[in-house]
């Protein structure tokens, strides 16, 4: 099979993984050196495909031959897809050639399970080793970790990779048992635990380098009946137990010849978007999951989770932006972390007024009912229900991938 054919098949097979981050690696430079590549810490999207997704990495499977039969996956063994398999050399060369032309920040390599977890993992590690040790490649490498692989292989993967990820795929043990019979939540957690322990060890400067960009995972949304509450609870569990950098949510999209165990219809993208927003509120703003989902088990689709929260906590509002602390200001619908910081900064020079907020490009309509500033306070309190109706976002295509970045 020609290289182009392999690339087509194995890029197609890998695109369901939504992780594309190329950030979090320590700074590296090849200026004046042999070898190739840099990492600036920030990550760069080198292109966007018409689905609005960023292309930062050469995201491919090593092979899409797979002996597992995960029902949501296009590469499951019972699927009738064309199959291909790279040679180690081919992946190395593709990465270097793409990198030189400034198409990518690095490589994201995953794989179907062939022969055994260890065998599969060995191939992935070998690609990374060749890139680092033979080609002196200093760009970004993300390796998918096969949960049942030997911890020693995981340690080796972390030696070469900037990020490792183990996909949990589904939020509950029951769903994993049902839809991914060969996978096992216990071994997935064990792999995440191994990675976390190594990450902890690597905090010590004398310890060997290990996956400096940490680890991440992905959950498919809408392939099973799990509600948003259990998805977010699982996410929070994973964040704190295994110190994940990110949990990616991927709205289930039907695949060719879908088995009857998974839905026929795609999950709403908006749901995925709301999960990213809620996840970000938990990680960045200090919200607790029960605050965002106390009565309902699902996030509202028509309004964003912060607004939904504020509407149930009317007693906390309006917030006086000239007095409140930064954390509370950031909880006001329409004010993000950076603007909260700027507002507090501005208070050192003068009292914050309406015009200041509008210059900070705050969405004033949304903000209005929730704030007090030097020259404005909301008139009589409208009912939450009315407010909610007034603040529903006009339907439009959302930035489903960038939003949570």
């Amino acid at each position: 099979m020609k290289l182009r054919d392999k690339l087509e098949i194995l890029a197609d097979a890998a695109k369901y993984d939504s992780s594309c981050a190329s950030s979090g690696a320590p700074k590296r430079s090849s200026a004046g050196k042999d070898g190739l590549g840099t990492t600036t810490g920030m990550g760069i999207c080198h292109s966007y495909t018409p689905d609005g997704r960023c292309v930062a990495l050469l995201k491919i499977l090593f092979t899409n031959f797979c002996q597992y039969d995960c029902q949501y996956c296009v590469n499951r063994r019972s699927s009738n897809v064309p199959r291909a398999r790279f040679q180690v050399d081919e992946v190395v060369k593709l990465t270097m050639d793409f990198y030189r032309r400034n198409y990518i920040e690095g490589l994201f390599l995953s794989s179907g399970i062939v022969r055994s977890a260890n065998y599969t993992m060995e191939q992935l590690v070998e690609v990374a080793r060749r890139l680092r040790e033979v080609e002196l490649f200093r760009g970004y490498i993300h390796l998918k970790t096969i949960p049942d692989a030997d911890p020693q292989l995981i340690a080796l993967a972390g030696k070469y990779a900037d990020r490792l990820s183990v996909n949990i795929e589904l939020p509950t043990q029951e769903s994993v048992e049902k839809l991914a019979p060969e996978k096992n939540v216990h071994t997935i957690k064990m792999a995440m635990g191994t990675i976390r322990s190594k990450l902890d060890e690597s905090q010590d400067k004398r310890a060997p380098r290990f996956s400096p960009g940490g680890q991440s995972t992905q959950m498919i949304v809408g392939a099973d009946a799990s509600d948003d509450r259990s998805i977010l609870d699982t996410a929070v569990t994973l964040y704190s137990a295994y110190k994940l950098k990110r949990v990616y949510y991927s709205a289930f999209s039907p695949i060719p010849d879908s088995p009857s165990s998974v839905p026929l219809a795609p999950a709403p993208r908006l749901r995925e978007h709301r999960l990213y927003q809620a996840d970000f509120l938990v990680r960045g703003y200090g919200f607790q999951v029960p605050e965002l989902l106390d009565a309902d088990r699902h996030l509202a689709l028509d309004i964003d989770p912060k607004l939904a929260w504020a509407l149930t906590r009317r007693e906390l509002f309006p917030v006086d932006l000239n007095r409140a602390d930064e954390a509370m200001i950031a909880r006001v619908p329409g004010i993000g972390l950076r603007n909260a910081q700027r507002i507090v900064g501005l208070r050192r020079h003068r009292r914050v007024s309406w015009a200041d907020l509008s210059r900070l490009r705050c969405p004033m309509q949304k903000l209005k009912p929730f704030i007090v500033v030097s020259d404005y306070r909301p008139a009589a309190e409208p009912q939450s229900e009315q407010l909610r109706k007034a603040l529903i976002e006009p339907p439009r295509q959302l930035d489903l991938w960038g939003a949570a970045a």
Partner: protein
Amino acid sequence: MSTRHRYEIADFEAWRRIARELLLAGVPPHDVDWLDVSDSGSHTLSLFESAGGDVSAARAPAMKPNSSADLFSAADVSGADHQQMPSSDVAEHAAPVLRVSRQCLDVLRSAAMFRDAGRWALLYQALWRWQQGDQAAISPADSDGARIHVMVKAVQHEIHRMHAYVRFRETQGERPAGSPQFIAWFEPVHEILRAGAPYFRQRMGRASWMIATPGGIAQCHGEDIEYGPPIPQPPPIDDAGESLWLSYYQHTFNPSRVNARVMTQHMPVRYWKNLPEGKLIPGLVAQANAGSQQLGQTDSVGARKGAPIRVSAARAMPVREAPRTLDTCTRCELGRHATQGVAGIGPRNASIMLVGEQPGDQEDLQGTVFVGPAGQLLNQALEAATLSRDAIYLTNAVKHFKWEPRGKRRLHKTPAQQEVDACRYWLEQELTEVAPKVIVTLGATALRSVLNHARIKLQDQRGRPLRHGDTWVIPTWHPAYVLRVPDPRARTDALADIVAALRQAQALSESDVVAG
């Protein structure tokens, strides 16, 4: 009486020189006319119709408070020489020292790259205000500051886009001496070539490359970057490597998620003509919108012959150690949130058994009892009591870690009585199997579980061996408690209590006195 001043400005350095003179002379902004004569002055943009598209997504400059950069002084503390105002004639002026914060200077320098004829006047206005003590002049909430920030954001965004959207083509075969191997043509909207090029030196190692733009070129042959005047747009090189990229681009696209608006927002149409993949976009969008791609798989892949893998479900199942029953225990909810059950460890014929409360964060990860901070303290206590850890049996009342999330950490939570009761099932198996002569209970949970008595208090029992069936039970503190005691004296005492309990356990285990 004021005179009007008129200056022609070609670049930031020229502006900085003149701004310095003007500030010293106390010339207010409204007395100065600034004329933009940069080579891009001819095609200026209106300030607020930034061709950068969505500028709001760009990163703002780091807003850390910074050391101040003396506008005049040559003594630049950081050594970053680009931070200084030119200063050849400092001494002659003996004028008040003009200081501007590094942050302010950085902001102005970035804003100056924004291609707009009005930029020099705006920058001088902001600098003037700053000198007057009005530091809000560069705050994004200020009216001048807001304009400047829009410029800075647009410039940073454009630099970022240069890093992203430069596309090198590789010259094939022989090339004339001195001609670079990788050549790119890029058309930035702002004057960012010098700000954007150094990144490629880091990226490309010793490879030789050139980025040509309508305003000038940057090239590098593995050492320093050289900048030069513009060259005509080079004819595209026929680079075979590019076609693989086009294949990749097409196939990493998921047609079932088509969302051209978002793509265009991130990658505005004006870049497409210099991106090899740009020419594919309209076709891909059209195909996806035509509805032929409901399944998210690209045509050319779907059209190929497929093959299920002929492996039986039984053979496909990975070989795993049979899960220990502990790992599959559902007697209570704790197992769901933990990594693994942590069983006791030690000789089956040990005469001393230590029972703690539950595994902690480290025990949960490593699958072994007493390996975290409390475990280390326990080791100390064992050593002090001259007891060998290998000779005793160590376990916990509850086998799974109970915790609650606190940001990126897990906070220990005391197990509820019903969890302790549920888990006694496992502890009793261990007790029966090991049948120790002496049990040291560490903390209240262990004591209650071992005695199967929910209301018993550790304070009342501590330090006194109790007889429980055929066994001695010695209640003492949990080492984790010792770690929590704030007062150093009390901490030493608590640790001594544990050591004493262990000594007592040893004595009792060696005596022939059988409890009962």
